[in-house]
Protein backbone atom coordinates (compact mmCIF):
# COMPACT_ATOMS: atom_id res chain seq x y z
CA UNK A 1 0.00 0.00 0.00
CA UNK A 2 1.25 3.39 -0.97
CA UNK A 3 -0.15 6.86 -0.22
CA UNK A 4 -0.87 8.77 -3.42
CA UNK A 5 -1.44 12.54 -3.19
CA UNK A 6 -2.83 14.91 -5.80
CA UNK A 7 -2.51 18.70 -5.87
CA UNK A 8 -3.96 21.64 -7.81
CA UNK A 9 -5.75 20.67 -11.05
CA UNK A 10 -4.62 17.05 -10.73
CA UNK A 11 -6.54 16.90 -7.44
CA UNK A 12 -9.55 18.59 -9.04
CA UNK A 13 -9.63 16.27 -12.07
CA UNK A 14 -9.31 13.11 -10.01
CA UNK A 15 -11.70 14.50 -7.41
CA UNK A 16 -9.78 13.67 -4.26
CA UNK A 17 -6.64 14.92 -2.49
CA UNK A 18 -5.19 11.53 -1.48
CA UNK A 19 -5.86 7.84 -1.48
CA UNK A 20 -4.20 4.57 -0.63
CA UNK A 21 -3.27 2.51 -3.63
CA UNK A 22 -2.38 -1.15 -3.85
CA UNK A 23 0.25 -1.37 -6.54
CA UNK A 24 2.76 -3.82 -7.94
CA UNK A 25 4.32 -1.22 -10.24
CA UNK A 26 8.11 -1.03 -10.19
CA UNK A 27 8.32 2.63 -11.23
CA UNK A 28 6.30 5.83 -11.12
CA UNK A 29 5.49 5.35 -14.82
CA UNK A 30 4.11 1.90 -14.01
CA UNK A 31 1.91 3.36 -11.28
CA UNK A 32 0.68 6.04 -13.69
CA UNK A 33 -0.28 3.31 -16.19
CA UNK A 34 -2.25 1.48 -13.50
CA UNK A 35 -4.05 4.66 -12.44
CA UNK A 36 -4.84 5.64 -16.06
CA UNK A 37 -6.50 2.27 -16.59
CA UNK A 38 -8.85 2.82 -13.63
CA UNK A 39 -11.33 5.45 -14.78
CA UNK A 40 -11.74 8.26 -17.25
CA UNK A 41 -10.94 10.95 -14.61
CA UNK A 42 -7.54 9.33 -13.96
CA UNK A 43 -6.92 8.96 -17.69
CA UNK A 44 -7.72 12.68 -18.09
CA UNK A 45 -5.45 13.73 -15.21
CA UNK A 46 -2.53 11.65 -16.46
CA UNK A 47 -3.10 12.23 -20.19
CA UNK A 48 0.13 14.20 -20.56
CA UNK A 49 2.75 13.41 -17.93
CA UNK A 50 5.10 16.02 -19.43
CA UNK A 51 2.70 18.56 -17.83
CA UNK A 52 3.08 16.84 -14.44
CA UNK A 53 5.67 16.62 -11.72
CA UNK A 54 6.10 13.83 -9.22
CA UNK A 55 7.53 13.70 -5.69
CA UNK A 56 8.55 10.50 -3.89
CA UNK A 57 8.46 10.79 -0.11
CA UNK A 58 8.39 14.58 -0.55
CA UNK A 59 11.41 14.81 -2.87
CA UNK A 60 11.06 15.72 -6.56
CA UNK A 61 11.71 12.67 -8.74
CA UNK A 62 11.42 11.44 -12.32
CA UNK A 63 8.69 9.28 -13.81
CA UNK A 64 11.15 6.45 -14.34
CA UNK A 65 12.20 6.43 -10.66
CA UNK A 66 11.71 3.10 -8.83
CA UNK A 67 8.91 2.81 -6.25
CA UNK A 68 10.66 0.29 -4.01
CA UNK A 69 10.49 1.46 -0.39
CA UNK A 70 8.49 4.57 -1.25
CA UNK A 71 5.59 5.34 1.09
CA UNK A 72 4.21 8.56 -0.41
CA UNK A 73 3.87 9.54 -4.08
CA UNK A 74 2.54 12.97 -5.04
CA UNK A 75 1.43 14.14 -8.48
CA UNK A 76 1.01 17.82 -9.33
CA UNK A 77 1.45 20.41 -12.07
CA UNK A 78 4.65 22.51 -12.30
CA UNK A 79 4.92 24.63 -9.18
CA UNK A 80 4.05 28.32 -9.14
CA UNK A 81 5.32 29.62 -5.81
CA UNK A 82 6.91 32.93 -4.95
Amino acid at each position, binding site marked *: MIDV*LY*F*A*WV*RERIGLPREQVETRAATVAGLVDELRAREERYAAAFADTSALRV*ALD*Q*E*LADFDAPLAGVREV*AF*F*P*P*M*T*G*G
Partner: protein
Amino acid sequence: MGVRVQAAPFDQGAEIAAFTAAAAGAGAVVSFTGIVRPDHGLTGMEIEHYPGMTEKAIRSILDQAVRRWSLVDGLVVHRYGLLAPGEAIMMVATAAPHRGDAFAAAEFLMDYLKSRAPFWKKESRDGGATWVAAREADEDALKRW
Protein backbone atom coordinates in the same frame (compact mmCIF):
# COMPACT_ATOMS: atom_id res chain seq x y z
CA MET B 1 17.73 30.58 8.93
CA GLY B 2 13.97 30.81 9.20
CA VAL B 3 11.21 29.15 7.22
CA ARG B 4 7.54 29.82 7.88
CA VAL B 5 4.62 28.55 5.84
CA GLN B 6 1.39 29.98 7.15
CA ALA B 7 -2.18 30.92 6.29
CA ALA B 8 -2.09 34.10 8.40
CA PRO B 9 -0.97 37.44 6.97
CA PHE B 10 2.49 38.60 8.04
CA ASP B 11 3.76 42.08 8.88
CA GLN B 12 6.51 42.55 6.31
CA GLY B 13 7.95 45.69 7.95
CA ALA B 14 8.14 44.05 11.37
CA GLU B 15 9.65 40.89 9.85
CA ILE B 16 12.41 42.84 8.08
CA ALA B 17 13.12 44.98 11.14
CA ALA B 18 13.43 41.94 13.41
CA PHE B 19 15.49 40.07 10.80
CA THR B 20 17.90 43.00 10.43
CA ALA B 21 18.22 43.53 14.19
CA ALA B 22 19.13 39.85 14.65
CA ALA B 23 21.62 39.72 11.75
CA ALA B 24 24.73 40.55 13.76
CA GLY B 25 27.72 41.30 11.56
CA ALA B 26 25.70 41.99 8.42
CA GLY B 27 26.51 45.00 6.26
CA ALA B 28 23.70 44.38 3.79
CA VAL B 29 20.11 43.20 4.09
CA VAL B 30 17.99 42.56 1.00
CA SER B 31 14.29 41.78 1.13
CA PHE B 32 11.78 40.78 -1.50
CA THR B 33 8.03 40.84 -1.02
CA GLY B 34 5.63 39.29 -3.51
CA ILE B 35 2.18 40.85 -3.68
CA VAL B 36 -1.09 39.72 -5.29
CA ARG B 37 -1.09 42.10 -8.27
CA PRO B 38 -4.57 43.55 -8.68
CA ASP B 39 -4.77 43.34 -12.46
CA HIS B 40 -7.05 41.94 -15.18
CA GLY B 41 -10.08 41.97 -12.90
CA LEU B 42 -8.51 39.66 -10.34
CA THR B 43 -10.79 39.23 -7.33
CA GLY B 44 -8.68 36.81 -5.28
CA MET B 45 -5.92 34.23 -5.26
CA GLU B 46 -5.92 30.84 -3.61
CA ILE B 47 -2.60 29.22 -2.83
CA GLU B 48 -2.41 25.48 -2.32
CA HIS B 49 0.70 23.78 -0.96
CA TYR B 50 2.03 20.37 0.05
CA PRO B 51 2.33 20.40 3.85
CA GLY B 52 5.53 18.70 4.94
CA MET B 53 7.25 18.84 1.58
CA THR B 54 6.90 22.64 1.38
CA GLU B 55 8.99 23.31 4.48
CA LYS B 56 11.59 20.71 3.47
CA ALA B 57 11.89 22.11 -0.06
CA ILE B 58 12.31 25.70 1.18
CA ARG B 59 14.89 24.59 3.74
CA SER B 60 16.83 22.80 1.03
CA ILE B 61 16.79 25.94 -1.16
CA LEU B 62 18.00 28.06 1.79
CA ASP B 63 20.77 25.51 2.50
CA GLN B 64 21.92 25.79 -1.11
CA ALA B 65 22.00 29.59 -0.82
CA VAL B 66 24.10 29.40 2.34
CA ARG B 67 26.58 27.06 0.64
CA ARG B 68 26.93 29.38 -2.37
CA TRP B 69 27.10 32.80 -0.76
CA SER B 70 28.52 34.29 2.38
CA LEU B 71 25.25 34.76 4.28
CA VAL B 72 24.75 35.80 7.88
CA ASP B 73 21.08 34.80 7.82
CA GLY B 74 18.13 34.05 5.56
CA LEU B 75 14.36 34.06 5.97
CA VAL B 76 11.45 32.80 3.89
CA VAL B 77 7.81 33.43 4.83
CA HIS B 78 5.17 32.07 2.45
CA ARG B 79 1.41 32.13 2.82
CA TYR B 80 -1.20 29.68 1.60
CA GLY B 81 -4.97 29.88 1.49
CA LEU B 82 -7.13 32.69 0.18
CA LEU B 83 -5.54 36.10 -0.51
CA ALA B 84 -7.04 39.37 -1.70
CA PRO B 85 -5.47 41.63 -4.36
CA GLY B 86 -2.80 43.80 -2.75
CA GLU B 87 -1.99 41.30 -0.01
CA ALA B 88 1.56 40.06 0.48
CA ILE B 89 1.98 36.44 -0.68
CA MET B 90 5.49 35.84 0.55
CA MET B 91 8.80 37.40 1.42
CA VAL B 92 12.45 36.50 1.52
CA ALA B 93 15.20 38.33 3.36
CA THR B 94 18.95 37.80 3.17
CA ALA B 95 21.71 39.28 5.31
CA ALA B 96 25.37 39.22 4.29
CA PRO B 97 28.58 41.10 4.99
CA HIS B 98 28.46 42.58 1.45
CA ARG B 99 25.68 43.66 -0.87
CA GLY B 100 26.56 41.41 -3.81
CA ASP B 101 25.98 38.26 -1.77
CA ALA B 102 22.75 39.55 -0.24
CA PHE B 103 21.29 40.47 -3.66
CA ALA B 104 22.41 37.28 -5.43
CA ALA B 105 21.12 35.02 -2.66
CA ALA B 106 17.73 36.80 -2.57
CA GLU B 107 17.31 36.44 -6.35
CA PHE B 108 18.42 32.81 -6.20
CA LEU B 109 15.88 32.09 -3.44
CA MET B 110 13.11 33.72 -5.48
CA ASP B 111 13.98 31.86 -8.67
CA TYR B 112 14.03 28.52 -6.86
CA LEU B 113 10.91 29.18 -4.77
CA LYS B 114 9.01 29.94 -8.00
CA SER B 115 9.72 26.56 -9.56
CA ARG B 116 10.89 24.17 -6.84
CA ALA B 117 8.69 24.82 -3.81
CA PRO B 118 5.33 22.98 -3.95
CA PHE B 119 2.91 25.89 -4.17
CA TRP B 120 0.17 26.32 -6.75
CA LYS B 121 -1.75 29.52 -7.39
CA LYS B 122 -5.34 29.74 -8.52
CA GLU B 123 -6.67 33.09 -9.64
CA SER B 124 -10.31 34.08 -9.27
CA ARG B 125 -11.97 36.47 -11.68
CA ASP B 126 -15.59 37.21 -12.49
CA GLY B 127 -15.51 34.50 -15.14
CA GLY B 128 -14.30 31.82 -12.73
CA ALA B 129 -11.08 30.47 -11.26
CA THR B 130 -8.03 29.25 -13.17
CA TRP B 131 -4.74 27.69 -12.12
CA VAL B 132 -1.74 29.85 -12.88
CA ALA B 133 0.45 28.09 -15.45
CA ALA B 134 4.17 27.84 -14.78
CA ARG B 135 6.07 30.15 -17.09
CA GLU B 136 8.91 28.79 -19.18
CA ALA B 137 10.84 31.92 -18.23
CA ASP B 138 10.68 30.86 -14.57
CA GLU B 139 12.20 27.47 -15.37
CA ASP B 140 14.81 29.18 -17.58
CA ALA B 141 15.69 31.54 -14.71
CA LEU B 142 17.17 28.57 -12.81
CA LYS B 143 19.80 28.07 -15.49
CA ARG B 144 21.68 31.20 -14.54
CA TRP B 145 22.65 29.78 -11.14
